[in-house]
Structure formats: structure tokens, C-alpha cells
């Protein structure tokens, strides 16, 4: 069984530009989560999809962040316009059911200059 995959592995952009991160969950996992680790701090929850619906987006920092999961398969997280403080590692995780273990992807390392 393939694990959670994320693309790109690294992204370096300038302040004000747009970046789109992609996550492909494990096949059959309805639950998809986005987390991020900024400036070496703790990993923080961003949002949770159940299939294509946003179940909880309480962790989204502001309206520069837009997450989608059209069709309930892969998800994208767009940052527009990017700011310096957005630099960090963005993790995606998925689980089959809500109360099951979340499996994490390798993360996308974003650097905003």
C-alpha cells in the first residue's frame, strides 16, 4: 500500500508569490489533514477534510491560505500571497476513519524569501 505523498518536497519562493502544495492520501482514506511546523516550533493543525468537505478549518491562519479537495481524493493547499512567516514544513496526513491512526506524508519544506 502506497503511503501519503506530497509534492513538491521543497519550494523556494519570493514574498508575494503564490505556491500550491499537493497531498495524495492513502487510497481509501476519507480523512485528510494538513499540519505545519513553522520556525522549528511544534506541529500545528491547519484543517481536516472528510472526503471533499471541510470538517474543521479552525487552524487556518488567515485568508491567504486556501485548501481544496475536489472529488475527495487529493488535496491542494494554496498560499497567496506568501509571506515570510509562512516558511516552514507543511505536512499532510490521512486516515481511513476519524478514530484511526493518521499516517503522515514526508512534508513540503517551504521557504519564503
Amino acid at each position: 500500500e502506497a503511503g501519503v505523498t506530497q509534492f513538491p518536497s521543497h519550494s523556494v519562493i519570493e514574498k508575494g508569490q503564490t505556491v500550491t502544495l499537493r497531498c495524495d492520501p492513502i487510497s481509501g482514506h476519507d480523512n485528510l489533514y494538513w499540519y505545519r511546523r513553522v520556525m522549528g516550533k511544534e506541529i500545528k493543525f491547519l484543517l481536516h477534510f472528510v472526503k471533499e468537505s471541510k470538517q474543521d478549518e479552525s487552524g487556518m491562519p488567515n485568508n491567504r491560505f486556501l485548501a481544496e479537495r475536489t472529488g475527495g481524493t487529493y488535496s491542494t493547499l494554496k498560499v497567496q500571497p506568501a509571506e515570510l512567516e509562512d516558511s516552514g514544513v507543511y505536512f499532510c496526513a490521512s486516515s481511513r476513519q476519524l478514530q484511526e491512526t493518521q499516517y503522515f506524508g514526508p512534508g513540503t519544506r517551504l521557504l519564503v524569501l
Partner: protein
Amino acid sequence: AQTVTQSQPEMSVQEAETVTLSCTYDTSENNYYLFWYKQPPSRQMILVIRQEAYKQQNATENRFSVNFQKAAKSFSLKISDSQLGDTAMYFCAFFNTNAGKSTFGDGTTLTVKP
């Protein structure tokens, strides 16, 4: 809201020895899971071990075991017979089964020395 505290930013251990990583948490929930994840330099976050709060028996996975003290809200990870491949950052995580999201500690960087 839940909080997770890992009080040891960095630790080191000699190969083949045993090391314990500490984790404490705070919650008003009664049903939850606790996890230890490891993130080696290759970046992939890997599940090490999982503990359901309703289970009294401590979880074990080969060389990895936990000491789960529910009343004290403590969840430490013991690594026996440490190997060089255990070098990684270790994250303790609290999983709220009602909300379906995890809260992480700051991580502990473990270095296994030859």
C-alpha cells in the same frame, strides 16, 4: 484545548543502551489516543507506537515501549538496545478522538552515538 509538553529538546544515547523520552499532556477529555512519531533526517514522519487511553496495558512495539500514566498525564517512550537508525526527531502527539485532530509537542532530537 489540549497541550503536549516534551521537556527534553535534545538527548543522546550510546548505541545498544536504553533511553527514555518524556512527554506530558493536559486535557479534560477521557477518550483519546497518544502517539509517538519519529522523523529521521530523510523527513518522512513515521508512526512509532500508539496507546489508547482506555487501555491500562502499556503499548510495546519491538524495542519501543511506553510508560503510560493516565492519572499523571504522562506518556514516556523507552527505546531499548538503541540503534544508529533511531537517530531522529521524536514527536509526542495527543489525538482527540472526538475532534479528529492531533496536538503535538515541540519534539525531542535524539542522537544515537556509535
